[in-house]
């Protein structure tokens, strides 16, 4: 395995950061400190991290309603993210967007998205621009298994293929479109199969194995940078929590959930790194402490930040 140590550690820290951030958000949401809806990424960390580990700062991503993980993996600032979740003036979107609409254009994050499948055509455009402007930038387009039944999926993959655009379509198959299991919302087992309908490569990977995701994404990014067109990567994974916080999850069998918990991507990766001697138990405690501190700092920052002025509500509709 040719991934250098620094990269592996980077991936471990990112996964840990996502997990810690999300667990804190769950806690704050339950405590009534975060308003609105939040959709947590816990359990799917390997996907965002494995893919973004192959991206440069000037590459793009489009994200989803379950976007915190993607943003952190692409380099998003958890202080600004937390402040946005609190609806504070200092947040990424000055309190106008919230969990489902966080973006950081300087980091190539074209936004989380409240519309299932809404990000796919946007990714096409970013890729078109990258190609048009003669850069070798690529776009990683994250979406769920539910979005793979939306018309935008079909239109976007077709267009990316005929224009051979530099897009990596990353389907996070967590097996549920809210409450509906995959076998009830599509008649194929592997969404990657659908790549054939657009004459592009489609691969299935274990989305809870960050190395597997990394390698699949590495190949796809290479292909995209070389101008050879898009790839569809299906990452089989599972969300540990509900569709949104407060979802009773009555629709999914306990045994199934337990099975998946055993495949927790972080635990697996941690074990591997220990076995490889890249991490020691003491490193793990240290790293976790550091991350914990960062998250606490983010919360403090958010809590201490002011709310926006009501009058700001009228700003930012148009560019003057």
């Amino acid at each position, binding site marked *: 395995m040719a991934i250098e140590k620094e990269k592996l550690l980077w991936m471990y820290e990112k996964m840990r950061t996502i997990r810690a951030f999300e667990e804190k958000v769950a806690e704050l949401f339950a405590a009534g400190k975060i308003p609105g809806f939040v959709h947590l990424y816990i359990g799917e960390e390997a996907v965002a991290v494995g893919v973004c580990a192959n991206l440069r700062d000037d590459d793009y991503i489009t994200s989803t309603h379950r976007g915190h993980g993607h943003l952190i993996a692409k380099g998003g600032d958890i202080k600004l993210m937390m402040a946005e979740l609190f609806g504070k003036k200092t947040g990424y979107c000055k309190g106008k*967007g919230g969990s489902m609409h966080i973006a950081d254009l300087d980091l190539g994050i074209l936004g989380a998205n409240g519309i299932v499948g*809404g990000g796919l*055509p946007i990714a096409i455009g970013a890729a078109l621009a990258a190609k048009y402007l003669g850069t070798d930038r690529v776009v990683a387009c994250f979406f769920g298994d539910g979005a793979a039944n939306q018309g*935008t999926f079909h239109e976007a993959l077709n267009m990316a293929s005929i224009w051979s655009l530099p897009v990596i379509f990353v389907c996070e198959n967590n097996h549920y479109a809210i409450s509906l299991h995959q076998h009830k919302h599509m008649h194929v087992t592997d969404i990657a199969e659908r790549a054939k309908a657009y004459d592009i490569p489609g691969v299935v990977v274990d989305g809870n194995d960050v190395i597997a995701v990394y390698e699949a994404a590495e190949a796809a990014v290479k292909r995209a940078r070389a101008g050879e067109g898009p790839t569809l990567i299906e990452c089989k994974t599972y969300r540990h929590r509900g569709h949104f916080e407060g979802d009773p999850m009555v629709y999914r069998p306990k045994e199934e959930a337990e099975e998946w918990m055993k495949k927790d991507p972080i635990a697996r990766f941690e074990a591997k790194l220990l076995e490889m001697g890249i991490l020691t138990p003491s490193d793990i405690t240290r790293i976790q402490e550091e991350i914990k501190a960062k998250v606490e700092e983010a919360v403090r920052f958010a809590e201490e930040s002011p709310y926006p002025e009501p009058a700001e509500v009228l700003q930012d509709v148009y560019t003057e």
Partner: protein
Amino acid sequence: MRKLTFAQALNEALRQEMRRDPTIYVAGEDVGKYGGIFGVTAGLLEEFGEERVRDTPITESAIIGSAVGAAAAGLRPVVEIMFIDFIGVALDQLFNQAAKMKYMFGGKAKLPIVVRTTCGAGMCAAAQHSQSLEAWFMHIPGLKVVAPSTPYDAKGLLISSIRDDNPVFFIEHKMLYGLEGDVPEEPYTIPLGVADVKREGKDVTVVATMAMVHKALEAADELAKEGIEVEVVDPRTLSPLDKETIINSVKKTHHLVIVHEAVKQAGPGAEIAAMVAEEAFDYLDAPIKRVAAPFTPVPFSPVLESAYIPSKENITSAVKEVLGK
């Protein structure tokens, strides 16, 4: 001065802007080899090539959605939706993505997009190819809505729209494409949000849009013979709306008639009437009147279609009504 048709004026605006700014590209169904179903993009492929003049599949969601992504990443897309009636299959990309992105992101995104489309009845194209749906887009914060009525306005407004850093929904009434008028050769802009008084008058204000501007002018000619002086105001941009010009005109004439081809209910006229009732109430000497299409889809048969589209006669009688004549 040199005369061009409405379609030629738009074509020249696109051509001149594309020469000026290499980040501008055109995409849509049949905009390339075919030159656009109504000929507005004719010759652009030959001059600018396939990279910048892109024929797309029939895939409206991806056409508008890709414009959003491309604009966010530094280009200035000008995309065409063949008929405004087709926007239904792509509306999410327009009203939840393009229109809101800047706001949701706290002002960070800049989305210089022009979505060109055609509207209007008069070709017997029936219920799915003849609609006037401008009111919807005016109701969506974050979009600008432009609706020219003359070749001169068409060129200047399209250039301004392309140079604007916001998503602009540019509506072309298909019955105007053949209309000829004076158009300067050099590029020029007409600011968005500035109405144009197409005819001055002191007795009654008629606010009309797109094709209806010309019917209003015909009506005005006729009424002039009876000594009624009609002022015809063409908003040109529907969002932002030039309230000031409309209100000043009403303050002068004390009577208001609004004419549009969209259906009356919850249409552009409702907003304009409400705005005047709120802001110029004391200047009105008579109730406001709206002349608009009835609350039905656009029928096919020529007989039914002409019964549907507001006529010069509808306008003259409305004017006489508000004047109590």
